[in-house]
């Protein structure tokens, strides 16, 4: 099942990016390994790609509305963003041609490329930037992810046909990263004027495909945009338009059925491939595999430091040291995920890794728990202090944690028992899970978070993020309230100096890691399997959602 990704608040600031005009394929293959093997076949135009998604069918195809990963996956085919990420992880212009930041850091000028047209014939002008930012900020749009991403933009002024100036309420060096996410993609301003329900079924963008029709519960039918001109020239291509005639985007919620449909050739590519399936497919060699970890935070356990027993660092470290995560990843996830020792995804250049902090050490775990005063044992062998058992509540969202991950958590539960710590796993549906967090009924939690750039650290660990939204939601699940950390995160998002930004974020990450507030597990998994007749799969957007512009079908 999908993890629900959401950006909580836009971080401030600048990637001081004197954005270079270069950039070839902005959507460069993020995983060369997966796409090179078939490079020798010449592209053939034609055919419809049948895509099977394991995600819940979006209720709206416009990713401005709400804003989750399944929407990003499909919208990446028909919408494009102002900025994107190159193969090195650098933010580069896409629909935009250039951008400049004023000296005070509060005015960002964006100039668009000339000659780009939306599917409905509307020309891409600076008015579109204004209309889209306003659409995201309009409460009636009910945007969540995109809304937070553009939260610091106070107003948009159109200065000439292709240039707009964004006035910021405060410095935000993450703005270009925010504008590289499909949740802030640029739609036709004319199309945005239609009623919301209409725009939801047929959003209009500039992408290589366009939405032809949507039969709910069956398929979103995408067809090739015959007028597509890639914003950045693609000299190696034989034609400017997509090779595929179209994509039939289907929803097959059951993982086993999805894989069976791939095996029987009913579908060409599946997402949400499960660890056992990936391992089987690798052995058989019958399918291509795209491993595209999502940006933002790594998947991790967060330890609620606002209440006992995790208000005690000794207990936090003891718990973490008692677990052998790597053997679990080998045995239960069939090595399909790479172990992470970082708060950030491996695709985030500013992430730092601290493997030594997380070396399993049962002896040390026991010693730390003794030192923390949890010396007595009850009849079941669990540690007790002042008559209370050392017990941890662990709500797990069955929507976000795939079965293999749930097994991993159960293995951790068994390991923790060895040192006398009880872990109570509660499998919950998404609503109940959010409810448990809102009520602070947790000691441990795993909550995925997708966002481009290190500014996700502010969302997850700044004390502001312990203050709940009206729904009760808050992102700082470790409940970190550390003034020094807050200061580092604020300075990191305001600086215009790239080296200083990296250093400040590194300090902030060390502070969190060394305090044992978090146990990193692995990147947010994002696996695709496809038939051998599907070629050139691997280009992705800034949020690692694949784009099938370069993809073609050939036996």
């Amino acid at each position, binding site marked *: 099942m999908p993890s*629900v990704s*959401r950006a*909580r608040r836009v971080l401030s600031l600048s990637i001081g990016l004197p954005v270079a005009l270069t950039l070839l394929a902005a959507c460069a293959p993020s995983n060369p390994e997966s796409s090179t093997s078939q490079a020798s076949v010449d592209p053939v135009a034609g055919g419809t790609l049948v895509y*099977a998604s394991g995600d*819940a*069918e979006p*209720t709206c195809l416009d990713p401005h*509305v*709400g*804003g989750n990963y399944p929407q990003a996956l499909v919208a990446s085919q028909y919408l494009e963003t102002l900025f994107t990420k190159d193969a090195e992880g650098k933010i580069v212009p896409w629909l935009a041609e250039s951008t400049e930041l004023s000296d005070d850091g509060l005015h960002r000028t964006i100039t668009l490329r000339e000659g780009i047209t939306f599917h409905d014939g509307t020309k891409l002008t600076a008015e579109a930037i204004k209309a889209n930012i306003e659409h995201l900020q309009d*409460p*009636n749009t*009910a945007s*969540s992810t995109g*809304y*937070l991403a553009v939260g610091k933009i106070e107003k948009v002024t159109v200065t000439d046909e292709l240039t707009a100036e964004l006035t910021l309420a405060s410095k935000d060096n993450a703005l270009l990263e925010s504008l590289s996410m499909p949740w802030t993609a640029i739609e036709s301003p004319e199309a945005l004027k239609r009623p*919301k*329900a209409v725009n*939801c079924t047929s959003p209009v963008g500039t992408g290589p495909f366009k939405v032809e029709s949507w*039969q*709910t*519960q*069956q398929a979103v039918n995408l067809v090739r945009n015959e007028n597509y001109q890639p914003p950045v020239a693609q000299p190696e291509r034989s034609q400017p338009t997509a090779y595929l005639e179209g994509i039939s985007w*289907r*929803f*097959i*919620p*059951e993982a*086993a*059925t*999805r894989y*069976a*449909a791939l*095996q*029987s050739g*009913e*579908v060409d590519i599946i997402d949400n491939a499960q660890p056992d399936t990936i391992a089987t497919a690798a052995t058989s060699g019958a399918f291509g595999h795209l491993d595209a970890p999502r940006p933002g935070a790594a998947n991790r356990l967060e330890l609620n430091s606002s209440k006992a027993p995790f208000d005690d660092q000794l207990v936090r470290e003891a718990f973490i040291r008692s677990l052998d995560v790597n053997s679990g990843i080998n045995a239960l996830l069939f090595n399909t995920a790479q172990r992470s020792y970082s708060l950030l995804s491996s695709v985030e250049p500013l992430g730092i890794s601290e493997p030594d902090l997380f070396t399993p050490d049962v002896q040390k775990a026991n010693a730390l728990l003794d030192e923390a005063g949890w010396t007595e044992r009850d009849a079941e062998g669990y540690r007790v202090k002042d008559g209370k058992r050392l017990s941890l509540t662990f709500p797990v969202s069955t*929507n976000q944690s795939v079965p293999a991950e749930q097994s991993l958590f159960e293995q951790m539960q068994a390991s923790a028992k060895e040192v006398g710590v009880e872990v109570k796993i509660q499998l919950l*549906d*998404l*609503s*109940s*899970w*959010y*409810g448990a967090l809102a009520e602070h009924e947790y000691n441990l939690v795993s909550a995925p978070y997708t966002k481009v750039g290190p500014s996700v650290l502010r969302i997850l660990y700044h004390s502001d993020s312990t203050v709940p*939204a*009206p*729904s009760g*939601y808050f992102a700082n699940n470790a409940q970190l309230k550390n003034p020094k950390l807050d200061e580092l995160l604020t300075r990191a998002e305001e600086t215009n100096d790239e080296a200083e930004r990296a250093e400040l974020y590194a300090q902030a990450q060390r502070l969190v890691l060394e305090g044992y507030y978090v146990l990193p597990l692995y990147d947010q998994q994002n696996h695709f399997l496809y038939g051998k007749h599907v070629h050139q799969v691997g280009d992705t957007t800034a949020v690692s959602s694949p784009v099938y512009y370069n993809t073609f079908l050939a036996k």
Partner: protein
Amino acid sequence: MKFLALVARRLGATLVVLWLVASAIFLAIRAVPGDPAEAIMGGPGSQASEQALAEARAAYGLDRPVLVQYAMFLGRLAVGDFGTSYSLKRPVAEVMGEVLPPTLLLASCALLTAWLLATIGGLLAVRATALGSALGSLAEIVAAALPHFWLGSVLIMLFSTALGWLPAVDTGTPAGMLLPVLTLALPLAGFLTQLLRDSLATALGSDFVLAARARGESKTSVFFRHALRHSMLPVLSLSGWAFASLLSGAVVVEAVFARPGLGRALLSAVLARDIPMVTGIALFSAAVYMLFMTLADAIASMLGGRVHAA
């Protein structure tokens, strides 16, 4: 006259049941933690602003006193207005109209298949040896106990992955219907065969059958002309229940085979806490259940059997 009275009584009972179901749903919704406005503004974990939530509450009447909401809720239902889906932002009735046909088709095919299999099973049982009968009985019990989820997955592995005969995903072709229909029909057929076998045994041991046999009629002839007709009564009268069980089975089968339908809509609605959608589907299912009970009893009454008072 007796027949009309029966139908009138059943219709009255149906209205009472629907009112009870609607009220239970209304109460249950209020007992579930979580703000419905949140479901409207993007689902669980929404970060909608207080202003946006307030607007959603006002738009859906959630800011009124509970009793007023209840009265409005019943009033709308009385005129067939199920409201607007929180997640799809479209009228519930319209969405149900779209997803209903594929589910009705699936359930009807499954019911017919189950009847057919049960009749064949019953016929075989009559002619079977003691050992055959015991094996048949075992097969029925096993079939009746098969969970839809498991059966569907096994059928896919067998007929789609291993043999490659049938598609795993139902895209609306007749071949695609086969596995979903079988998945729904097999457990029901097992149950119905057991039922039929028992009533057949009773019928075949009864005086009128002995008399027919004594007149020299063959076993098969007696089976079809006398015993089967007699034994169909309990099977028919259970078909209302059977159809309702097929609707609930459709939730699983539609998910497994990625088939559009009411069950899949219900599953998404529950996960998204889309209250109007859940209410609409639940009420519809209750109405269908009552309708089929009434129909089955009416048919049974026409066939001349005795019908127990509702």
